[in-house]
């Protein structure tokens, strides 16, 4: 009690900068109600996808001819389809397919697009201007779904090939975005100051330019996940994605189309979940963008 402080300055405990940064960022995220909603739904879907085997009351491929085209009930929460399969279980397993497709195809796009974009933007030159950019232009000039369709047709039907196709289709967007960001940042004084301090090109690209381009990359990635889910659903709808009897929201939608007037729930539930997933991921992505912006207070 009687002890006197050694200095008159308040002895503030210095927080680890990383901890302080995360605190600051999550503070910003939690202020955004829509982003919180998006995040909760997104993580709920991820949880559902991971624990599908425990959550689904029925085998998603099991056919029960005594319960065909039944409406929602206690036994079959979302009803059954024309082959008597439990739609609730199929929607749960479909979440697996959709999220997988979204994450893996965007992962492929990032893995190819980020390094190409960084190198192309930083070093410029002939390769950048005349080869990489014109190639991306060519790819971007074809509608994404058409290109994915063509690629999936060449690679062959199936989920894996669909994901590769979607990943390739999404890549030029990332190359363009990252290259543009790098172009803006390579002229910034801190890059020149870094060069003037003797920091190597590689380190400048990885440690200084890349982190500064993270915010738009993250936003683009979340948007791309949503887009990839839609494209996968479309490919499955057209029969090039997930093959029956595996459940996919897209193929369920296609299947339900034939029963829209007699059994609308077949198309309704997968359609609703595509919508919910895409909008949640978009809202969450928006929140992440604000959270990552170091200049936002």
């Amino acid at each position: 009690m009687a002890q006197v402080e050694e200095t008159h300055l308040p002895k503030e405990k210095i927080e680890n900068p990383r901890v302080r940064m995360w605190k600051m960022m999550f503070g910003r995220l939690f202020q955004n109600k829509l982003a919180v909603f998006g995040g909760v739904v997104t993580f709920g879907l991820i949880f559902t996808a991971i624990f599908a085997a425990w959550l689904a009351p029925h085998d998603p491929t099991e056919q029960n001819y005594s319960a065909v085209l039944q409406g929602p009930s206690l036994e079959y929460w979302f009803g059954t389809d024309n082959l008597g399969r439990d739609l609730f279980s199929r929607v749960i397993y479909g979440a697996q397919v959709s999220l997988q497709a979204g994450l893996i195809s965007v992962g492929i796009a990032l893995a190819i697009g980020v390094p190409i974009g960084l190198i192309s933007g930083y070093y410029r030159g002939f390769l950048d201007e005349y080869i990489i950019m014109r190639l991306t232009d060519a790819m971007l000039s074809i509608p994404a779904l058409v290109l994915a369709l063509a690629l999936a047709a060449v690679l062959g039907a199936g989920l894996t090939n669909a994901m590769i196709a979607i990943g390739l289709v999404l890549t030029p967007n990332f190359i363009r975005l990252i290259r543009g960001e790098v172009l803006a940042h390579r002229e910034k004084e801190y890059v020149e100051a870094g060069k003037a301090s003797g920091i190597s090109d590689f380190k400048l690209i990885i440690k200084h330019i890349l982190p500064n381009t993270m915010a738009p990359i993250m936003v683009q990635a979340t948007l791309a996940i949503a887009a990839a889910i839609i494209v996968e659903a479309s490919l499955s709808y057209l029969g090039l994605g997930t093959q029956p009897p595996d459940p996919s929201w897209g193929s369920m939608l296609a299947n339900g189309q034939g029963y829209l007037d007699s059994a609308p729930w077949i198309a309704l539930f997968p359609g609703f979940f595509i919508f919910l997933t895409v909008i949640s991921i978009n809202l969450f992505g928006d929140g992440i963008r604000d959270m990552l912006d170091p200049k936002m207070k």
Partner: protein
Amino acid sequence: MGEKMDAQLKVEDLHVGFKQKKSSVNILNGVSFQVYKGETLCIVGESGCGKSLTSLSIMGLLPKQGEVQGGKIEFEGENLVQKNMKQMSRLRGNDLSMIFQEPMTSLNPVHTVGKQVAEVVRTHRQVGKKEAYSRALEMFELVGIPSPAERLHNYPHELSGGMRQRVMIAMALACNPKLLIADEPTTALDVTIQAQILELLNDIKAERQMSIMMITHDLGVVSEVADRVLVMYAGEVIECANNRQLFNNPQHPYTQGLIASIPKLKEEKDELPIIEGSVPSPEKMPKGCRFSTRCPFAKQECLTDSPPLQEAEEHTVRCWMHTDRWEEMTPWKGVDEDGREATEQDLIRS
């Protein structure tokens, strides 16, 4: 500054230009000067005269189209022009450091300032993270950042402009450079902070026997910090003298004009004297003296003959006025030999 000292940096007949599609434009035309150990050399001149290009050439940071077309840059006896990228990287930030004009944007917004200073230390010294941070802390104390230990963990946007410039200086000095190039270090700061930063640079220079090459267009700053002053005009050195001599006895009409255009407290004037016109563009350089088109004293030959750099008692100047030939030269008639009025075309170097 009478006695000869060792030159830390010696720039000799430096020619720098920009490559264009077919031709190339020459910007620096035979720039020569020295920076002695432990002195502050100020380079002054208006925008576009090649001040910054000179410093970038020394650092080896010329933009892509820029090229050194001739001359030597000797730093500690080694010619920097011949060094490759890797060798230059080793020098930069280590023996040769630079502070930029804009402290607001010269720091990376996504890293803490401590991390950025520590990174420079780790780039050049074989030390661990902890040591690098303690070195950064030491530097923060040196440059007078209050509560330095806490500031290490701040992001650039959390600091004021003056603080950020101090961080930049800390970063530039972290590896004990022998030569510090400061490219308008105080232009973006307000006047009280300017004075603090200049004082800080002066103190550190004295303490560490470091040479400073400061680029500025603010003659007030020059008179305060410079040991010697180099005046550049359109890519050439036109005058070089020690601080007092230059301000008391400017020799070149351009320097005279610059000094005359500083507002003085004692005199009341409606209008400040100005130097008419602006720097000719590199493609339209006069054949003779580059200042001849704006010079109030120009004679006929000034337009066609390039004056040599006259050296006298530590005061060099590039002007015909200070040569023996001046008396014999034809007074300016505004016309050329054939009696035609000199057109702009005649004045331009082919």
